[in-house]
């Protein structure tokens, strides 16, 4: 029922057309007159102080106009490959033999890898702004564009949120080409296809959809491409925008598209038959489709010894469930069903609650809120104050509150245990769902006891089983049940024991 709400209408009218005056200018072609072209482009780039116009006279005869964006071009390479030949007559046959610039390009007189000729003004403006150098000549209605991009980019380093003990430490960066190269070097096969799109009317961001032909699920691929094609927006700044636009159920707390910053995870997902979406200017790549159980797997599941990994999976599962159910469970048992707790524990809890003025439910909600606040504060803190706040949080809130008789001790233990348990969930975006739903379950358990909690759990289960991620049921292989994939999901067997490829979504 939420499918209709998929496309958000962000209609801020900032399109190129209405930005600067006359529409007709930018759809035309360039003219033969260099002066006219010069004035047109100068008008387009008025007040853009980082766009440089450079005029040169070649041998006193030709006037050549070069336009580029400062900071985005490799000036040195350009000087060597284009300026020098032009100015110092380094061309083997001499300039006189060539009649036009386009002829020069055709005959490959400039040793540049990536070149292009453009005739439309609008297109020329776009290419200048993406870091390419435009060269215009008198008496020619074409511009010669050389791709000599050189921009500041971050070095390839380990992503902070997905660190592993063992395994590669490379992470994606903000440059699309670097990212595609990181994937390509792990899968040097011609079947690894990379289809590119441009999204965003103003930002014109490059998007690459990668998949391995032959392994990928064709219907899912079609669906992904269709949804990307349907995105109509002016700006894309992060892959989150795309994720929101192409998700099946945007109102679900559970993410249906996986995101990662590690190329090894992306490569392994590609080999499983999934589709990876890379975007320029962001290191987060999207992987579709996703299931619930992918959210509970970590990167180093396949890099460590399998016995240990299986034990850790059990621990991870228990803690994930604890992160969701523990507060609700405690409140429900101690206020509605005291008979279910063994005698000694019950007496301890009752004694601890003697001094506390709040009812269990209110206390738990309060402490959970404080804990979430602490977490959020921890994200924004500068490094110097970080340890101080953790000490303050632990000592003041935990210890002193218990001593003062405001909070009972079991609640503090409970809340910290839940907080730690929620960090065991390997995928950070998946953990959001658990943290949100914990509150819902808590309120249900506090007002309706075991019945409320059962209803809450049923509602979550029904929701999770119903939603699909690009046609793949979210809770598979448990529901619908596929035995082979389920066994791989539960127990990680050594590689020499697996015959068939791992699960497809």
């Amino acid at each position: 029922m939420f499918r209709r709400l998929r496309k958000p209408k962000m209609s801020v009218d900032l399109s190129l057309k209405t930005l600067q005056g006359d529409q007709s200018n930018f759809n035309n072609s360039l003219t033969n007159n260099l002066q006219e072209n010069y004035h047109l482009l100068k008008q387009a780039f008025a007040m853009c102080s980082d766009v440089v116009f450079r005029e040169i006279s070649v041998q006193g005869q030709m006037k050549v106009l070069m336009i580029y964006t400062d900071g985005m071009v490799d000036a040195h390479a350009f000087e060597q490959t284009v300026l020098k030949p032009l100015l110092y007559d380094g061309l083997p046959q001499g300039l006189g033999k060539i009649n036009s610039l386009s002829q020069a390009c055709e005959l490959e007189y400039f040793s540049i890898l990536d070149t292009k000729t453009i005739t439309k003004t609008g297109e020329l403006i776009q290419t200048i702004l993406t870091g390419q150098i435009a060269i215009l000549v008198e008496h020619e209605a074409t511009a010669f564009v050389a791709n000599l991009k050189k921009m500041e980019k971050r070095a390839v380093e380990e992503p902070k949120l997905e660190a592993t003990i063992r395994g590669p430490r490379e992470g994606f960066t903000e440059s699309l080409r670097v990212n595609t190269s990181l994937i390509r070097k792990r899968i040097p096969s011609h079947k690894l296809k990379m289809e590119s799109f441009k999204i965003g009317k103003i930002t014109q961001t490059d998007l690459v959809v990668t998949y391995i032909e032959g392994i990928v699920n064709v219907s899912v691929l079609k669906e992904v491409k269709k949804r990307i094609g349907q995105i109509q927006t002016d700006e894309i700044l992060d892959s989150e925008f795309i994720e929101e636009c192409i998700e099946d159920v945007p109102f679900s707390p559970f993410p249906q598209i996986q995101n990662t910053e590690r190329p090894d995870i992306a490569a392994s997902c590609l080999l499983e038959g999934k589709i990876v979406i890379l975007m320029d200017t962001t290191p987060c790549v999207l992987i579709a489709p996703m299931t619930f159980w992918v959210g509970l797997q970590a990167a180093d599941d396949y890099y460590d010894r399998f016995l240990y990994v299986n034990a850790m999976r059990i621990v991870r599962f228990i803690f994930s469930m604890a992160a969701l159910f523990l507060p609700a469970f405690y409140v429900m048992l101690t206020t509605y069903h005291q008979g279910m707790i063994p005698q000694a524990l019950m007496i301890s809890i009752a004694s601890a609650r003697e001094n506390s003025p709040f009812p269990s439910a209110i206390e738990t909600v309060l402490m959970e809120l404080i804990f979430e606040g602490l977490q959020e504060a921890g994200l924004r803190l500068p490094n110097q104050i970080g340890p101080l706040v953790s000490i303050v949080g632990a000592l003041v809130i935990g210890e002193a509150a218990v001593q003062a008789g405001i909070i009972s001790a079991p609640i503090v233990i409970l809340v910290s245990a839940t907080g730690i348990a929620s960090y065991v969930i390997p995928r950070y975006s998946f953990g959001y769902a658990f943290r949100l739903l914990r509150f819902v379950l808590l309120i249900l358990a506090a007002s309706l006891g075991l019945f409320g909690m059962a209803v809450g759990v049923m509602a979550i289960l029904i929701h999770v089983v119903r939603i699909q991620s690009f046609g793949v049921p979210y809770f598979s292989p448990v529901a619908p049940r596929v035995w082979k994939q389920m066994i791989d999901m539960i127990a990680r067997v050594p590689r020499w024991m697996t015959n068939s490829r791992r699960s497809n979504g």
Partner: protein
Amino acid sequence: MLVRVTILILLLTLMATGLTGCWDLTEPNQLFYIMGSGIDKSDDGKIELSLQVPLPNQQGSNQGKGGGNPKQFVVVSGKGKNIFDAASHIVEKSSRKLFGGHRFVVVINEEVAKQGFTQWLDELIRHPDNNTRARLFIVKGITAKGFLETQYKVEKYSSLSAYQASTLIGYNNLLYEFQRDINNPVNYTILPVIESVTNNKEYEYKMHSIAILNKEHKLMTYMKDREATSALWAAGKLHHTFITHYISQGDGTISVDLRKIQRQVKLNIKGRVPSIHIKLSGKGIYTENNTNLDLLSPSVKESVTKEMSKRIQDDVRVVFDKVQKKYKSDIFGFGNEIARKHPDKWNNFKKNWDETFSKMDVTVEVNLSIQGGGLIGSGPKIAK
């Protein structure tokens, strides 16, 4: 439109949980957790119900049980026509609700037991919160209230110590098992007894006897020590036991610790009087050897086991004779076996079962299987 409807539904649900929920929310510190209940006879036909309830210890960061022996429980009691009536009188004196889900024991004074007490068990089974795995005891030599009020030296609550002791002696009677037994066709039942032994003004308790209840569930008689063990074993209710006997071969006593105790009943109901053959078996180890026999050698083991079995057989034989002739009550459950396996024939026996039982031919066979003897075969040589 759809979003609005969804939000509306969510808001309504939220309000509904606030309005209709929480009606039976009880904080853990608003309850009295009943550890043990005691039933006494009180004047003018009423019964007195006593409840042992733990005190919440007001310790925040102090650890440990208090230095001396501060009392960690309190006993509240009330009189009434039945359990619920008495409980309602207790509530008049107490500040919290009563909660019976954690009950350890139910203790019944022998006076009450002599007059029949099973009608008082109704409330303990009826309420869904109640714990039917509580253990049932009969108290002798002191009132139930006195027993609950005693401060035990080792455990925090006397009901807890009774609960744990009954596991050690090998026979415990759970409330729901008792309730099942009294509904059997032959409903003689056995209950363990807590006997108080006054010792220098401090109460001490022993659990060494059992009480036999007759058909109306009134206390009939007691049986002590070895008789009790044999009776329980023949009835099939014993879990484990320790037996010490004089072994003539070695001219000394030998003790065994038997763990896996079983009873098999073979019925032979041809004719007007049935005959029964019982096979009692037990597996255990030798725990003490006061003879010169080497218990590690297989031949010695075999002969000693045989003699031990014979002695136990004699004990059980004695018990059978006593119960059959003197009490004429089928506490061993033979009638129930017949009723289960041959219900049509049981109809013939039903009417005069007591008479039939007293005339029945019962043979006993005891098979012990003693597996180990510890580290040594025979102890230090004994001078003769």
